[in-house]
């Protein structure tokens, strides 16, 4: 009898599968990125004040990220539920926590790419500035925040996968959960940009909170994902 795949191999197989689907379909590149860019432009129309835009740039970046998260998660799980692909993974007898980790890492990488573009658009559209030390804080903040969002997005995406009304249920469930990420990532990004006279050092405590969030939902998600889709 053929030996079942190890956890690491399952993680990398699911990760490569999700990234390959994105590379072939280019949904994030062709649809989600323009959508997020439009959000940044629409905020500029709505606020219509350069000083205010510079002050709130951090919050706008993370709001655009969270709105885009819903789109990416729903698409990722819509593909997995078509033709019962998720059920096929389940009956293959592989470790479902590895499936969770693979999908979460793929989602994190897509969110990271999205944030690079969003931050670049904030430099261009809102004229924010960042020092060398601020850049280190910004990179750490993006890494920790997108990791947390990747874990929590995958977990709740699995929960609502294949259910009626998932388009409206996912934001209702996810928004309260990602509130700590929105608050912490916004404050850390503002510290990195020096918005409103914030010192860069103020941002590190928020990065700590983002790390705790990612760890809690990484562990919680690994344990809960299997029972959630094991139906």
């Amino acid at each position, binding site marked *: 009898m053929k030996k079942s795949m190890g956890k690491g191999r399952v993680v990398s197989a699911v990760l490569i599968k999700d990234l390959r689907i994105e590379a072939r379909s280019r949904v994030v590149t062709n649809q989600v990125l323009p959508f997020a860019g439009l959000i940044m432009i629409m905020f500029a129309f709505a606020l219509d004040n350069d000083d205010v835009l510079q002050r709130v740039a951090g919050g706008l970046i993370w709001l655009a990220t969270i709105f885009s998260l819903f789109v990416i998660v729903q698409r990722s799980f819509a593909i997995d539920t078509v033709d019962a692909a998720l059920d096929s993974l389940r009956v293959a007898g592989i470790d479902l926590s590895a499936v969770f980790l693979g999908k979460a890492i793929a989602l994190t990488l897509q969110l990271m790419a999205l944030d690079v573009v969003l931050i670049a658009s904030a430099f261009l559209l809102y004229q924010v500035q960042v020092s060398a030390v601020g850049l280190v804080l910004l990179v750490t903040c993006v890494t920790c925040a997108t990791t947390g969002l990747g874990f929590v997005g995958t977990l709740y995406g699995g929960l609502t996968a294949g259910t009626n009304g998932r388009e409206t249920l996912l934001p*209702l469930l996810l928004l309260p959960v990602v509130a700590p990420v929105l608050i912490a990532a916004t404050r850390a990004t503002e510290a990195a940009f020096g918005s409103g006279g914030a010192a860069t050092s103020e941002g590190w405590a928020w990065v700590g909170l983002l790390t705790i969030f990612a760890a809690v939902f990484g562990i919680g998600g690994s344990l809960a994902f299997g029972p959630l889709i094991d139906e």
Partner: protein
Amino acid sequence: MSQSSRKVSNTGTQATRVIGVLAIVVMIWVVVSGLVLTPADVVQGESVRIMYVHVPSAWIAYVAFIVTAIASAFYIFAKRHSLGFDRVAGASAEVGVMFMAITLITGSLWGRLTWGEFWQWDPRLTTTAFLFVTYIGYLAVRGLDGSTQQRAKRSAVVALLAVLEIPLVHFSVVFWRSLHQGATILDPNGDVKMDGLMLFTLFSGVVGFTLVFIWLVLHRQRTMLLSDLAIERGLDNAILERQNESARN
């Protein structure tokens, strides 16, 4: 109506009737004492009377969500995944959402009179609002399509995740800002600064609301049981009818 069908459709027992009568008596006392007997506060004036509803409802809302979490944990971790735990969790969450709404409404009214605003972005208020939305989401998950076991498993996981989420939300909002009035009754030094009758009325409110909570949860989980039985029997009857039909043909 036959004796057996009356038994099935009845959600009351001797115990719930006793709890119900006790709840009515205590609540009448709270209304009379809170509105008539207790004095107005030196600083807050008449608005302090809102506290006799606000504090007990907040207490019950948090107790309800703890009950939901514990019942969900029992459902998930017990060897025999008993739907009884799921029904208690669901009933408790429904009643908790109702009490949380009362907490938010009475808190807003008190805030308007005391702070001059219906809403302030204070950690405790914000956490309470997030808890309210989280459990509305929990109830939405309970309403998803699927079998009763699927419903139980999904909602139990969401309830346990909420236990992880709430401290994180609270901690982040505390970091963010703090304005709420400090603890008056649960002072860490045990120094209670309240008139005796006011304090007694407040604790009566807590007891009364707890009795109302228990009464509502007991009845609600029994109506859920009846609803689940109706679905099961409906399915059994439909199968039986089809079998009889095919036997006749």
